[in-house]
């Protein structure tokens, strides 16, 4: 009798999960290509917005793939297909290389010279707190933030606001800041919020169809921190202000005492998410879409309130035309609605 009991135990307890699990898809080039194409097809956010025919791209790249390709050749085909999305948030990572697209700033003016900023605007008496480089120019605070990639202590931000609190205005320079965490930019924006304001909407990809999105989810930013700076503020942007920096510029622009000066931002309005392939490679692509509070899709960048370019002559003389324009603007203490942008164009 006990023998029956033991047989029953063996049947029930050692019945391995493989009994229920389906066999995994075989790891080869063709299956990896098809998986990548399908994952992007079902989850990528901007097919309709960018008017991309993903099926026709499959027809171009699929014939280039066979299981005899070398790993490098296969990577190049996969990266080439992803590059058709023209998206700085789309990457393919392998154990030997990764792909990226830089269309968002290539072919545009740099509008930034870090050496000139160090030599003539930060000079030697600046102070730094976390990622912030801070100086004072003609009773105006100047803050340069090179990246939103790292977390910082809120006390760093409080000390920056405290240090600049008595000045007549602040310039926030986020040029060449290619992003990082949205959270970082939003923490900063809270120090400049006069009230809780609707700043944007996020749409989440919810289904396999190219237009399967959630309803727009509103995002608000309200006052945050010990002190808030409600005097005139200028945010400086250029084509390399991307991703989380694009988000920061959009958020700051929602406040009435903030003016954006410089060049259009680089864009990058979708939050990128990761997915793995059968061969262990990893792809990254946006699965959300962001609209500004007025409904404008920020994927391709945000226009400044006042467009200014750095002139070649100024740059050679060590002058940052965009910072100078911001200083003029803040000195005049005019509201942005009273400034005619044409007066400041084409430096």
């Amino acid at each position, binding site marked *: 009798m006990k023998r029956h009991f033991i047989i029953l135990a063996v049947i029930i*307890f050692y019945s391995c*999960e493989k009994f*229920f*699990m389906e066999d995994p898809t075989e790891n080869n080039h063709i299956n990896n290509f098809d998986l990548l194409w399908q994952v992007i097809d079902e989850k990528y956010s901007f097919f309709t917005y960018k008017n991309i025919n993903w099926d026709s791209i499959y027809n171009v790249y699929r014939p280039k793939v066979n299981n005899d390709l070398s790993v490098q050749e296969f990577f190049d085909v996969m990266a080439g297909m992803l590059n058709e999305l023209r998206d700085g948030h789309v990457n393919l990572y392998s154990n030997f290389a990764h792909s990226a697209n830089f269309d968002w700033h290539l072919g545009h003016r740099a509008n930034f010279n870090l050496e000139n900023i160090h030599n003539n605007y930060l000079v030697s008496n600046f102070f730094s707190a976390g990622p912030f480089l801070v100086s004072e120019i003609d009773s105006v605070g100047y803050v340069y933030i090179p990246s939103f990639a790292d977390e910082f202590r809120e006390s760093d931000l409080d000390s920056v606001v405290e240090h600049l609190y008595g000045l007549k205005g602040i310039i926030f320079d986020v040029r060449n800041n290619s992003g990082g965490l949205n959270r970082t930019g939003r*923490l900063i924006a809270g120090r400049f919020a006069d009230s809780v304001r609707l700043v944007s909407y996020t749409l989440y990809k919810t289904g396999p169809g190219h237009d399967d999105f*959630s309803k727009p989810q509103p995002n608000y930013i309200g006052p945050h921190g010990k002190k808030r700076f409600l005097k005139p503020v200028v945010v400086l942007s250029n084509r390399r202000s991307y991703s989380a920096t694009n988000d920061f510029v959009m958020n700051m622009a929602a406040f009435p005492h903030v003016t954006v000066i410089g060049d259009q931002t680089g864009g990058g309005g979708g939050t990128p998410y990761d997915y*793995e392939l059968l061969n*262990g490679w990893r792809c990254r692509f946006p699965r959300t879409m962001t609209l500004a509070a007025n409904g404008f899709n920020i994927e391709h960048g945000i226009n400044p309130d006042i467009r200014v370019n750095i002139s070649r002559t100024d740059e050679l003389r060590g002058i940052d035309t965009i910072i100078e324009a911001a200083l003029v603007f803040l000195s005049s203490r005019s509201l942005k609605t009273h400034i005619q942008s044409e007066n400041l164009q084409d430096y």
Partner: protein
Amino acid sequence: MSGYKTGFFAVFFFLFSFSVSSYAGEKVTRHVSAGVGYALYGMRDLGLSPLHYDGDHIFLTTSLQRHTGKAISIAEVSFMNGRISPDINPLLTTAEMKSMKLYIHYSYYRYTGSILNNARLYLGGSTLLHSASYRHNLFINSSINLNTINSLNLSGMISLPFAVNEREHLLELHLQAPVAAFIVRPSYAYIKPSGFLDHSSGGLESIFRSIEVATVDRFFSLNSGVSLKYSLRNNSALRICYRWEYMEHSGDNPFNSATHGIVLQTIFTL
């Protein structure tokens, strides 16, 4: 696969359907137990990756049991912590996930009768709250994934008492399977480091959107164990238990997982 499930449930309901009058013993005993163990855990979540991840885990568990001649009720809390990595050549990827799981389990068994000479058959139900978090080392915005599954199950247990050197020991075998489950499995939830800002509700939206009440056509699990209870002279006992759990959720992001664990417990009679 659905054929296997149908067959399993047919057998289970057949076993459940024949009732035998309850045993009349009324003596009540209570036990508390604490245990530690090792588990091998494997999972595949197509919302994150097509790769199968597995790895070693430490298992901690504590339980409170109430025995009468007619019924056994067990409340148990278990915690499992470890790391899992893809089952492909490690030179191809450095991917790894930290995995944490919490189980809160309540079972009630009713004595149904004797089978196989002196083995005792119990049938009943249970509720199992299973909450898991995974943190991927290479992912950025979808690095932290949380899911919670609360299932209502049919349960069965066979216990076989036997004596060695005039001391009673017990061999137990239990099995449970769900009839319905409340599932919260967002396809992606949180950025790294954790959390969206106060006014940004994206993560929360993703969680609420994923809520689902599922029956066996979309959620299936088997939870079983075999244990040997060795009585000590001071009225306490040691128990070594082998557990196996399989879980499967179909839907937009199909998921399955399996756990094999060995737990060593000390049981005290209150």
